[in-house]
Every structure is written in C-alpha cells, then in structure tokens.
C-alpha cells in the first residue's frame, strides 16, 4: 500500500503542542488534538443537536401544550397526560400493540433459531443467507403491498391457492379478527432472515469441541441445543429480542399501506394512534404526550427484559 504523507512541518510537531510562533494560530488549529477533534465532530454535533437532542426536549415541552399548529402553543401543564390516562382509545391501542408483539416475536424468534441451527449445520453458503435475508432489504411499504396483493380476496395468488386447496377465500386484511395476525405474519416474513442471521453469528462463536464432548457424553441434538446452544448465545438472544420487540412496538408502515388502523380499529397500534392525533387531526400536544408514553413504556420493557435475561452474562466467559 502506498500512503503518501507529506514530509512537512519543520518545527517539532509531536504531541508537544507549544506553538513556537504566536502567528501560528491556524497551525495550532491543525495540530492541536482537541481543536482538531472539535472541528471533526462539529457537523455531526450540529446534526445531533438539531435533530436528536433538541427535539427530544422539545417533544417533552410540546406534550405539555395544547397546539394545533395554527395558533401559538398554549401551555397546559400535565393535562395531556391525565387525558391520556383516561383515554380508552389509548389503552385500546396499547392492547393492540401488545397483541401484535405477542403474535410477532415468539414465532419470529423460533423460526430464526430453527433457520440458524440449520444454517450452521448444513448450509453456510452466502447465497442461501442472501436469499433468506432478501425480504428484510425490501422496503416495508413494498413488502406490505405485495402481501396485500397476494392476499387479495378476489385476485390474490394466496387466496387462489386457498380456494384451490378447498379452504376457500379468506379476507385477511378486512376481517376484524384476522387483520392484526396477518400484519404480524407479513412482518415475520420480512424479519425472519435477519433474526436467523444474527443467531447464526452467535452460534458460530461456540467452539465445536463443546458439542463433541456432549455427543460423547451421549447428548442428542435436542439436548445439546437446549443445554449448549441456547445458553451460550444468550447475549445474542437478548440483543435480538430487545431490538425486535422495540421495533415491533413501533410498527407503522405496514398498517399505513394496508388497513389504516381498521377494520373497526383492530389494527390501530400506538404509533398509528400517534400519527392520527398528530398528523391527521394536528393535535401536536396530545400526540407528543402519547409518544412520550410510548418511550416510557419501551424503556420499562427493555429494562425488564435485560433484568430477566441477564444480558451481560454468557457461560462462554
């Protein structure tokens, strides 16, 4: 590799930064570590302050106001939060969200583990991994519209197949009972490959001789899965569970394309409810209060999970 470094700087430029000449302010700017550091992080810091840090506090402030974007925000204290507490729609949307997470996560995790075990044992090819990862790389909106089309009661391929088998056509997205599980299935399809890959990575780190030893001791494949694999990938398991639960709590795109919160509010998740309040009815204060409640809820769920699953520890040491 040829790296050309200009052999310049006649003065001694090491980590001793004493500027020998007073005129060399700009020189110091280029050579002093801390000055340079600030120049390097300045753009990112501006972005972080403008679009992460300031909005986080502003969201908290907005949640204490009554604001429809037309008039100036009116400070009303914690009124939005007491309204939220007594809002049956909020609790209903939380219930829908919990149900969705409940449909989504266990199946996704089990499929992910199954695929990961099979990938470790049988197929380590990149092509196979690319294939199962493909759905994850497609836009949510596209995934949703493809499934919406496949499950169309009249023309969809899925329903044509169901008809052909003899089950008959099922209106997946317009049935009040089926709409939410259907959306869960769509997102399981999109995420199972990524989940499998993450578990696969975790499993690859387990030394082979542990399995050999277990086999000699007479442990079958099930025994070695539950006795070795699962305990040893616990950090990965926690990471995957935490991130996928946080992700499922915020499901929005699929609903925006397919059911729009219907039929009869059966798919009105918390983020959809926030969207309706904030960007359809322009109740910014209330929407912000709802989003803060979501944040608190996610923080609690994450902490509880970390505690239960003791994330930091792996028997692998």
């Amino acid at each position, binding site marked *: *590799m040829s*790296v050309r*470094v*200009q052999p310049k700087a006649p003065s001694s430029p090491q980590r001793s930064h004493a500027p020998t000449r007073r005129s060399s302010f700009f020189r110091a700017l*280029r050579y002093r*570590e*801390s000055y340079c*550091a*600030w120049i*390097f*992080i300045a*753009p990112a*810091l501006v*972005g*972080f302050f*403008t*679009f*992460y*840090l*300031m*909005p*986080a506090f*502003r*969201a908290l402030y907005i949640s204490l106001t009554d604001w429809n*974007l037309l008039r100036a925000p009116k400070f009303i204290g914690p009124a939005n939060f007491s309204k939220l507490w007594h809002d049956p729609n909020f609790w209903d949307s939380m219930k829908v969200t919990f149900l969705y997470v409940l449909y989504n996560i266990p199946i996704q995790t089990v499929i992910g583990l199954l695929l990961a075990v*099979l990938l470790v044992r*049988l197929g380590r090819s*990149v092509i*196979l*991994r*690319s*294939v*199962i990862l*493909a*759905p994850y*790389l497609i*836009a949510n*909106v*596209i995934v949703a*519209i493809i*499934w919406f*089309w496949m499950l169309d009661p*009249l*023309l969809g391929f899925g329903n*044509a197949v169901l008809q*052909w088998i003899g089950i008959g056509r099922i209106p997946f997205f317009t049935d009040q009972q089926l709409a939410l599980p259907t959306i869960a299935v769509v997102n399981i*399809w999109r995420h*199972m490959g990524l989940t499998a890959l993450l578990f*696969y*990575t975790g499993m690859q780190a387990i030394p082979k001789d542990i399995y050999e030893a277990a*086999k000699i001791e007479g442990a079958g494949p099930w025994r070695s899965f539950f006795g070795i694999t699962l305990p040893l990938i616990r950090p990965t398991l926690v990471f*995957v569970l935490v991130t996928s639960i946080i*992700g499922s709590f*915020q499901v*929005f795109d699929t609903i925006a394309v397919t059911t729009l919160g219907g039929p009869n509010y059966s798919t009105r998740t918390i*983020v959809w409810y926030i969207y309706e309040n904030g*960007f359809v009815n322009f109740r*910014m204060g209330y929407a912000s209060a709802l989003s803060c409640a979501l*944040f608190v809820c996610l*923080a609690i769920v994450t902490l509880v999970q970390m505690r239960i699953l003791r994330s930091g520890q792996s028997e692998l040491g």
Partner: protein
Amino acid sequence: MNKKQKLNRESNSPFRYSVLFGYAVLAFFAIISLGPIWIAVKTALSDSSTLFSGASSILPQQPTLFNFERVIGLVSPNDPRLLQTSFGKVNFYQALTNSVAFTLLAVVPQISFSAMAAYAFARLRFFGRRLIFFLFLAATMIPSVVLFIPNFILIKDLGWLNTYQGMAAPYALMTPFAVFFLRQMFLSTPTELEESARIDGASYFTIFFRIVLPVHRSAFATLTILAAINAWNEFFWPFLVGRDRSVQVMAVAINSFRAQQAGGTPDWSGLMACTVLGIVPVAVLLVLFGRKVVESLQYTGFR
C-alpha cells in the same frame, strides 16, 4: 448397548434422514422468502386483463412489459391500450428520481460527517468525548416517532416541507448508527501507520484524508451500501414531510398510488410494476455485494 455403538447408530441412518429433512426445511424457507417477490414480478409482467383468470398461475400470463412502460411514463396518454381499463395514474419515473435524489442527499454527507466524528471519537482526546459519545448512544433509545413531531415542526418552520432538503436533513449530518459503525472499525485497526505519520509531522487532517479514509475504504463501502438501502426504503419521515408529487419518494408514491383507488379495484399490475422497480436497485446491490451486505448485517443487526 455401550456408548460407542450408540454413537455409531446415531451417525448412520437416522442422521441421514435428519440431514435430508434439514435441507427440505431450508429449501422451504428459501421458497417462502422469494415466493412473494416472484409473485410481484409475475403480476408486473402479466397483461392486466389476465389477473383474474391467471390468479393461481406461477408464470405470467401473456407476458408484457407494458405495465413497466406505463408507470414510468413511456406510453403516450393517447395510447389505445390505456383506454380499455381504468389504470391508476402514477408518475413513477418522477418518484424514482426523487428517491435517487433523497438517497444521495441523505447518505453522502451522512457518511462523510459521521466518518469525521467517528475518527475523533476513536483517535483524538478531547474534553467531553465520553459524555458526547454517551449522548449519541442514548439517542438511539428514543423511538423515532417521538422525534418526528418536533422535527416536523422544525422543518415546517424552516419552510422546508415538500423539499428535498427537508426530507434529507435529519439524516444528512449524522446518524448514531453510522458513527458507531465507523468508530468500531477505526478502533479495530492498529494505529501504527497513523502514529508514524504524526511523527513525520502530518496534521490530523492529512492523516484522516490520506491514511484513515483509504485504509478503511471497505468499511465505508459497506456502510454506504447499508445506509443507501435504508434511505431508499425510508417511508415514515418522507411521508410526513414530502407528500407532494414533485418530491415524493418511491415508497410514498406507492402508498399514495394504492390509496388513490381505495374505492374500486386497485390497478394491481401497475402497482406491482412499481414495486418491482423499487426492489431492483436493492436486488442489484445484494447480487453485487451479497457477502458484504449479509456479513455486515449479521454482525451489526442494523435496523
């Protein structure tokens, strides 16, 4: 039966069957993964008059590229084929160019500025480094919808609704993921080269541009691919601030195209042509850089 015999029995016939079964399960999931995508391709290639009769077929009926041509506006509005059915109106060519503009605007500066910040976090000592890095980390805990409300108001106050800069701004200066990813890359490489350059009198800027960037070009390529895929697929934020047809990105266009016809039967063949066009760039990246994409996702769990 002693242990050895048991071991032998296990590694013979039942094992073979379980391997076969394992491959069958893998094949099943591979088909499940690609099947729906193929159905979209099939529909996009089918003549829209065959949608009902060919609903259960796996191959396109009366294959045609007409659907692609009409959604990107290659067909003249007076074309007789457009009159026979009630096709939805969509200018998907515009949406694709908007997506390209949005992706470039969001990703190129994002990677550059995140790289600079990551270099500072990984290599330079300065007051507040740990605190700022901790804040970057903490920010990833905030659900995006919490930030969307104030960010929407900010973009609105700036008069940037329905502009490219309004859509790209929150991604353009940094994303916590890009900073973490690159910092990790920088930390995992030895510093000798950089240190000897320091001794030779190179400034930090020289080191960054002449050494750090070339040495880590593979990491930059990976991150650029991931960030580009993410930007290309982005929906919620562009949907909030860029709904106007002149700026709406691919995902927003598909959503509004489908919402247009909520009453009657949607223009499925047209919609599927749009989805296929929306998948193509990602598919090309996956085919060209499969290993890179798969392995980087595998180790980072980017989402």
